[in-house]
């Protein structure tokens, strides 16, 4: 900072000469920087060709989309506000109970799936693959299956969310367990505690804030996904929404979408408050 000397042009060229290699573009370097964009472009062209995207439809499609949007104003309840409110309540109930059941189910499973607490590698492997399979099937497909089991209605939605989230939460919980410090548990064991006490006092305090944050996050995302599973008859506002789109009642679609937006915003706000209360402002990931 002190003794500032004037910058001269010679300095610039000297610096350039010293770091020649940074500015020289070798053929290999140029090829690697070009490869990624070219690959993306090539694959895009292939995809457009393979899917035979009808470009002629885009113009008329946009026009009718504009018509739909014009029909959305002013949003209207269509005279059944009560029905919509009940459906929104169902959506929240599906998200809450689905998340809670998934948590209760995933918690014990995650101990079997975590490297540090699993009784045997074979059990761990089997449970991991099971969780992967459950996760690989979308919640909407689980909803279709459960509609066949318990009939139409929000109960099917609850079970669908519960099952598909058990897969995801089980994986996340077990990763949280694996990321804990072994030392706390070892010290409980060293002072004569049983392995159950070691988990209770050495492990749980470390994972509880992480798990609580993840549960809240899943509740938020489940409120979003519970808005669609109604499309297959599993309760919630999705049923009304899909019916209204199919019958071109776009003023009611706009109202339902606004209800979803407001509800999701409120839920996000509440759960971010709760998250701050649980894990503190700094640790928010």
């Amino acid at each position, binding site marked *: 900072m002190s003794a500032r000397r004037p910058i001269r042009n010679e300095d610039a060229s000297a610096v350039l000469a010293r770091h020649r290699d940074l500015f020289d573009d070798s053929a290999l370097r140029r090829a690697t920087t070009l490869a990624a964009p070219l690959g993306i472009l090539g694959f895009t062209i292939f995809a457009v060709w393979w*899917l035979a995207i009808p470009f002629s439809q885009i113009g008329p*499609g946009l026009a009718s989309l504009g018509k739909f949007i014009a029909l959305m104003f002013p949003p209207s309840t269509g005279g059944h506000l009560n029905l919509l409110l009940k459906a929104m309540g*169902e959506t929240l109930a599906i998200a809450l109970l689905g998340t809670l059941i998934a948590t209760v189910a995933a918690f014990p499973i995650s101990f079997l799936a975590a490297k540090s607490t699993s009784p045997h590698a074979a059990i761990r492997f089997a449970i991991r693959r099971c969780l992967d399979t459950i996760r690989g099937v979308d919640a909407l497909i689980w909803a*279709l299956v459960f509609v066949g089991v318990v009939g139409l209605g*929000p109960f099917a939605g609850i079970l669908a969310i519960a099952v598909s989230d058990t897969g995801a939460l089980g994986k996340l919980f077990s990763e949280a367990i694996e990321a804990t410090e072994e030392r706390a548990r070892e010290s409980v064991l060293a002072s004569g505690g049983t392995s159950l006490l070691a988990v209770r006092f050495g492990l749980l305090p470390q994972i509880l804030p992480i798990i609580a944050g993840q549960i809240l996050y899943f509740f938020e995302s489940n409120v979003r996904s519970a808005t669609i599973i109604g499309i297959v008859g599993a309760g919630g506002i999705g049923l009304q*929404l899909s019916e209204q789109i199919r019958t071109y009642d776009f003023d009611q679609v706009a109202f339902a979408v606004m209800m979803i937006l407001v509800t999701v*915003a409120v839920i996000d706000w509440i759960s971010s408050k709760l998250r701050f209360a649980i894990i503190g402002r700094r640790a928010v990931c």
Partner: protein
Amino acid sequence: MTSSLLSVPQARLEALLADYQREVGRRRRQSLLVLAILAILIVMAGHVGEVDLGNLARHISNFTSYFGRIIPKLTAANFGADVADWYWNLAGWLKLLLDTVLIAYLGTLFGAAGAFMIAFFAAANLAPNNILRWSIKRSFEFCRTVPDLVFALMFVSAFGLGPLAGILAISIHSFGTLGKLFTEAIENIDMKPVEGVRSTGSRFIEMVRFGALPQVMSGFASYTLLRFEINVRSGSVVGMVGAGGIGQDLFVAIRKFYYTDVSAILLMIIVCVAIIDLVTERIRHRLSGQEGGR
């Protein structure tokens, strides 16, 4: 024994113990309160959600027998022919699966491109204009909160059946989620390089190009790859409303009780998602390695 070891006066010890008990009691009361609120919510939600455990218990055999029925009959003696019978439409399904992957690819690409161009105007540390920033943030929120199936339904009505509706629905949803993630990544950058570029009197675009972009590029790529994997999964679902891909066949198979078809298609989707998961994880690890231990 404790007193001989620690030599804490009896009175002091009692005061400490009382404090400890009070603190523990306070926390117990707090968690009891939370549990009570949760219990009330559960009862309310159970009522609204029409939870009927008796119904579940009566029909749970449907659930287990469903999985019994979707598992194909494979015999060791006639294994090859049985598998061929199970996957009787392998060529058709593979083509549809490729459709789904390509729909997800194009949807992710367009969504990511849109989010990339706009995210810099939405980040609090770079945004040139607060009103613009606020409206971009709200539009991201809109795009990711409205379910992609709702967009797909509308686009199917507007553009007709086919992959175009699916691509558009997925790109809009990806635009919303990636926009949020990109914006947050930009807001977390080190501002010194940006200030360095700004001090040379450069314009906004150069500030972004040389100050911000090198810091966020690998993060962007890794978010996009993660999104691609998620989109392959949801791409198999948007087909259900006629927006192209394998979802249509899966939906028909479930609804018409073609049991072994359901397991065949589901297995294909799961394997495909798992492969993409593995590949993108590899690439993401390499990208985060390049970042130099951030």
